[in-house]
């Protein structure tokens, strides 16, 4: 009796071990396609671009690429045009993401009042982010035409001076920022509104009873409680805004007089008009490094990691 009761578990344990090993193999087998694909389209091109960035590879020059070590990186540090593009991009990202964020929070507060009819309006508001960026660029370029565009028509209608919009180097950057805000505020609104909708009700009721007015409630409770959501939305938008290319390219091609020459537009020119792929790869790597540093500073300042760990503990 006691023999069987001792030996039975051993048999089961043995079977279990074999079975678990088998399961592990199945796991790897299932992972393989994704693993191969990720490496083929993600990891390999990255390593390859790092390699190219150390060469003077330019397919239009023919012949083999020469290994130039860090020459491309050294040239990049002295490339005024590149740093001009980085500076413009920084201004673009700051103004666009900052304004979108403020608008998104205000819209979320408004729509959180949940008046009848808001449901429809909320859906309409989301439309800009669903439109192809190329189409957005074309439509806004037409609307911003100094003589034929509807924007100047509207300005004169209310008695204001018409603007040159994308045709003047002094207003071109602001014009593309305006379009970016128009297109991407809905995205931030969507995230922030979801965040507001999910906030617990009782702290707000407690605040109303404790005597807090709407402004204090916003700054002492709503905003701090929304912080994790705002930080995530902002992070996503920062990364995305740095990559902005299509709309700007369609609207201005980086002009006039390089006034909207964002880093993405500049990189496109180096890589696919001059085909200076070695140098372009080096510039891309420097850009990646800069974006990473900015993101790290942002996460540090916003207390992102602390927010996430508190959230997990809650």
């Amino acid at each position: 009796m006691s023999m069987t009761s001792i030996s039975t578990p051993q048999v089961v344990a043995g079977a279990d071990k074999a079975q678990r090993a088998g399961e592990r193999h199945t796991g790897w087998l299932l992972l393989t396609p994704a693993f191969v694909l990720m490496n083929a389209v993600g990891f390999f091109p990255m390593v390859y671009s790092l390699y190219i960035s150390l060469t003077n590879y330019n397919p239009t020059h023919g012949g083999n690429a020469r290994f130039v070590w860090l020459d491309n990186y050294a040239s990049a540090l002295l490339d005024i045009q590149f740093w001009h593009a980085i500076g413009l991009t920084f201004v673009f990202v700051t103004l666009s993401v900052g304004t979108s964020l403020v608008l998104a929070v205000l819209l979320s507060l408004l729509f959180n009042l949940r008046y009848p009819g808001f449901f429809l309006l909320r859906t309409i508001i989301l439309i800009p982010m669903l439109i192809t960026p190329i189409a957005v660029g074309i439509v806004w370029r037409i609307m911003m035409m100094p003589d034929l565009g509807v924007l100047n028509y509207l300005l004169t209608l209310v008695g204001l001076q018409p603007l040159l919009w994308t045709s003047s180097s002094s207003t071109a950057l602001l014009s593309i920022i305006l379009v970016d805000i128009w297109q991407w505020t809905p995205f931030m609104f969507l995230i922030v509104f979801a965040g507001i909708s999910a906030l617990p009700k009782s702290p707000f009721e407690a605040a109303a009873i404790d005597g807090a007015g709407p402004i204090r409630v916003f700054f002492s409770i709503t905003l701090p409680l929304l912080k994790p959501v705002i930080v995530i939305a902002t992070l996503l938008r920062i990364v995305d805004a740095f990559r902005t290319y299509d709309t700007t390219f369609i609207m201005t091609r980086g002009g006039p007089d390089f006034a909207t020459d964002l880093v993405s537009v500049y990189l496109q020119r180096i890589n696919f008009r001059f085909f200076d792929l070695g140098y372009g790869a080096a510039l891309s790597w420097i850009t990646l490094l800069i974006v990473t540093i900015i993101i790290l500073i942002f996460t540090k300042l916003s207390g992102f990691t602390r927010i996430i760990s508190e959230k997990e503990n809650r």
Partner: protein
Amino acid sequence: MGIQIKDVRKRFGALTVVNGVSVDIAEGEFFVLLGESGCGKTTTLRMVAGLELPTSGSIHINGKDVTYAEPRHRDIAMAFQDYGLYPNMTVYENIAFPLKIRKVSKADQRRKVEETAGKLGIFNYLGRKPFQLSGGQRQRVSLARALVRNPKVFLMDEPLSNLDAKLRAVMRTEIKKLVSELGITTIYVTHDQIEAMSMADRIAVMRHGDMVQVGSPLEIYDRPLTHFVADFMGSPPMNLFPASMTTAGRPTGEVREFVDAIPDHERDLISSRLDASGQFTLGIRPEHLKLVQLGSPGSARAVVDFVEPLGQTTNVYLTAGEKRLIAVTDRCVSHVGDVVGVYAPPEFLRVVAN
């Protein structure tokens, strides 16, 4: 002074949640709204708080009409079922928040927060965030935040329902002690009759949006007016027998011996408690039923179905005729299948409305 609720109604669309509730709550009174979920007790409380507006009726707090006033203009404090703490603030900041709004000086804030926190035993947690506290500690923080500014009126919405049984018992006495020391007028919402009985100066039992009975805990326990109250209060609940009186002065009912024993002063109540079809209910608390020798005068014959020994007392489940009864006795020697006599002392028989 105190709180006057006059004919307050609340409708959500076609649904009437509170159906004309009126009550005067004296200054310093501990008033409990008791009822099952969905009976309108929380809505009534939220209307007093100003978190919901009544469809009609009026609410006065300390002589001031606050029916449509903002919550912050009512000088009330409230404790919520889910505590309602500010998750982004520390315990200290949570408790200090109402003081900060009232522009109390930093030094006074500190003194009051520390004093209140000390009283509630959360002094050591002042630096923590709510998520680092247990349920009991969070509830104390919510009480501290409510008490720190000496409110005139304290509203509590099932504040103990998220706590375990042991902690609930402790907090019950603590809250009662604190509130009566400070003399704050309190409305306390609960579905737990033990909380209601142990804490209240007066209880209002609510059902389907109506206050069906208002009275002191013992009054409600001893003299329930309706079948619902009689059944709702007490565990195990009152034994209730359907009875009727079609001829004046001659009630009839299921257990003959009990109907015959109805004393005169209860007999006089019957006509006022009859429903349209001449029916009423006769009730007696399980602890008042006596198990006696079979055939004793005035007793009914009953069979023991089930015995639940609880240590100090024993619940005995019986059948008399068709009717099932519960008697709470001292430790007893009844066994399943015993045939016994049950005796209902006339002074404990109650006539209640259906």
